[in-house]
């Protein structure tokens, strides 16, 4: 105990700890511990710390180091405040970033940029666009870079029409001639919002020959939205411009099984004639089999004589189901869950868990006070006798 007390009272001058080299090693936790002991960090150290916290995305650390900044002499340093904004936005807390922003005595262009971009990256594009309006109202004149962030914000807010308006105002009001990045920015608005066909058309209308970066961007947007044909097309064009980007051993695209040509010429009627709506008997069997497995809550197992719906509710929340639900949200897909129950599992839960095991695609192992139940693919090892 005495030792602890001794530690808490730094009677000796604090030993010189090289915080900078600790930062270089990425040891944020240790630096924080030293600061708790009263060691003061300088601007360079804070700079590094903010960078580290932004990368590790640990909001708790971020808040601590920010706290120490506020207590330090460099608390009103503009550059460091911007760093803090960046750190909070990377850690996913725009509320904190905004608080810092609002309390800044002076702001420079970077401050606005970081805020707008931060909103965009956190899926809060609308707030970003509102801030952009405020920025202009405050008399700041947007520059080339500003528009890149504005486009990011538009992409994040599904604000496609607005993006095109900003693009136009960039040329008309601010006399900035658009660079490739700006076209890419607009492409990003379309691509990120899932307007892929429109993005592809947009590329065909670019006032310059599309570069490999354009195709790569389109390829990535196609990947995001799962359009593999477009992805392949874009990739082919990208590789055509830069063969070094070819992916070795790429899995070939599976063939399409669709009657596009026919739709186009003869309308649906002909396709229907070939394929729908005849029922094949094996389909019928499949459906019958599936219907049999349908689960209807068996309320007979609830002891209380209550009305039907309430009974179903009571069953729904039996303890084993709660445990399973918690297990599901806490573990990766398809890993088995192990539940221990102090009583016998009731008939209805047994039925339900059987079907659940199929729905959730996991082995559910329930040990009740009598025996083990290994539920898998809609069956139980106990053979329904328990």
């Amino acid at each position, binding site marked *: 105990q005495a030792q602890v007390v001794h530690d808490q009272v730094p009677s000796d001058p604090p030993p010189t700890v090289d915080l900078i080299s600790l930062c270089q090693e990425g040891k944020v936790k240790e630096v924080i511990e030293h600061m708790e002991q009263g060691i003061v960090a300088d601007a360079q150290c804070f700079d590094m710390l903010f960078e580290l916290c932004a990368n590790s995305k640990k909001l708790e650390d971020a808040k601590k180091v920010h706290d120490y900044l506020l207590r330090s002499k460099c608390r009103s340093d503009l550059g460091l405040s911007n760093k803090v904004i960046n750190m909070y936005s990377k850690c996913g807390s725009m509320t904190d970033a905004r608080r810092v922003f609002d309390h800044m005595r002076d702001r420079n262009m970077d401050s606005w940029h970081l805020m707008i971009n931060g909103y965009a990256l956190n899926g809060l594009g609308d707030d970003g666009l509102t801030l952009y309006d405020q920025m202009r109202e405050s008399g700041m004149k947007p520059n080339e870079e500003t528009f890149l962030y504005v486009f990011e914000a538009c992409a994040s807010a599904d604000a496609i029409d607005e993006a095109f308006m900003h693009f136009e105002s960039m040329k008309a009001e601010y006399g900035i001639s658009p660079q490739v990045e700006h076209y890419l920015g607009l492409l990003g608005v379309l691509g990120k919002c899932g307007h892929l066909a429109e993005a592809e058309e947009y590329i065909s209308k670019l006032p310059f020959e599309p570069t490999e970066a354009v195709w790569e961007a389109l390829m990535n947007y196609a990947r995001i939205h799962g359009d593999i044909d477009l992805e392949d097309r874009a990739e082919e064009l990208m590789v055509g411009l830069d063969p070094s980007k070819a992916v070795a051993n790429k899995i070939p695209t599976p063939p399409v*099984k669709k009657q596009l040509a026919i739709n186009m010429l003869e309308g649906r009627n002909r396709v229907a004639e070939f*394929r*729908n709506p*005849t*029922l*094949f008997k094996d*389909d019928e069997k499949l*459906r019958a089999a*599936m*219907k*049999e*497995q*349908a*689960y*209807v*809550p068996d309320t*007979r*197992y*609830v*002891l209380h*004589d209550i009305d039907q719906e309430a009974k*179903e509710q*009571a069953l*729904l*929340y*039996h*303890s*084993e*189901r*709660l*445990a*399973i*639900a*918690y*297990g599901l*949200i*806490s573990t990766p897909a398809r890993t088995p*869950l*192990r*539940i*221990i*129950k*102090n*009583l*016998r599992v009731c008939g209805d839960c047994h039925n339900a868990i059987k*079907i*659940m095991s199929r*729905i*959730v695609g996991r082995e559910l*192992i329930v*040990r009740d*006070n*009598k*025996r*083990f139940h*290994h539920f898998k693919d809609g069956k139980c*090892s106990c*053979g329904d*006798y*328990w």
Partner: protein
Amino acid sequence: AVSEFTRMRNSGVEPNHITFVTLLSGCAHFPAQALSLGSALHGYARKLGLDTQNVKVGTAVIDMYSKFGLVGLARLSFDHMGVKNKVTWNTMVDGYMRNGDFNNAVKVFDEIPERDVISWTALVGGFVKNGLFEEGLVWFREMQLSAVEPDYVTMISVLSACANLGTLGISLWLHRFILRREFKDNVRVNNSLIDMYCRCGCVELACQVFVRMAERSLVSWNSIIVGLAVNGHAVDALQYFDLMQNEGFQPDAVTFTGVLTACSHAGLVEKGLKYFKAMKKVHRITPRIEHYGCIVDLYSRAGRLEDALGIIKNMPMKPNEVILGSILAACRNLSDVKLAERLMHYIYKLDPDGDSNHVLLSNIYAAVGSWRGASTVRKKMKALGIQKKPGISSIEIDGVLNEFVAGDRSHIHAEQVYAMLEHLSGELKVSGYVEDDFSELYECG
């Protein structure tokens, strides 16, 4: 030994401390019969002053009283002892634990001047033996923190706690821990590991431990066979049974419990009966009630109530509540309320406090739509003071045990848990049927 002692006294030879220790521990082994002799011995030792002066004798006295269930007397002797060594302290801790007095056990433990591995083991093992598995694990963690290296006895206790809690995450950690210790090849530790994995429902790992064992005992074989059987791996269990005999082990009563359980799980009626016969005729093992239980279960599952009752009729002992429970379960499957009611009559007598069969009977009534019957049972349960025990389900995530009771909303993630449940219950309802609106969109190629 007792008569020898009498002769010794008669011949006038003074018994020394060794005599006392031997005799006292002899008494401790037979708490039912040796109470009077034990206290007489204590009195004699007292006269000689051995119990307070000689550490070993004093300790033996404490041990004896503890085992007699007279922990108060044990404590009295403990307090009167002039000299105490480590063993004395440990014996006292063990004495309190043996009698379920955890507070005093911990108190004494805290007072021990020098706690060694035995002290810790007494505490951890005491909690586990009393069914307080989580406390056992907590104290094991304390033990780790105080840097006392556990021995294999500690480990067996801890493994047993995990087996009971079914915490696979901690189990795996313990297994890794053990693999770095010199007792990693200890047969009893390995047997515990097998049991633990089986009770966590993880037979693959149990089998792995079993296969890698350098030497195996009968208990090893029994553990794996029973473990496989209760987990529903009937075929594997029976395979191990054959393998065991090939390796020259003689199956015992426990082995057959496993084999018969396997058969009843898998519905292998004829095979089960064959094994039952072989057990009696070939291996000369008198069936115990759990063997009869398995056969009754076997028949009940197959819907052969008549044969099941035949077994009960012909067995030499009274059926216990487990056996009657099997029959009751069969009644539920056959919706036979009459028989269930008659059975309950016996179950009341056998096990008036047991609630699970009451619940079962009430379920049977409910199953045939007789709400009145069900509520009668419930009223009866209330009258008898039997409350339906709350169902508690637990699941271990990242080494943390999460417990839930029905309708529980106290968990920190309750909101997500309930959202997930709601979605699941929706899926359960649609599971299997395709909305009719879309029927003609059915896949055709």
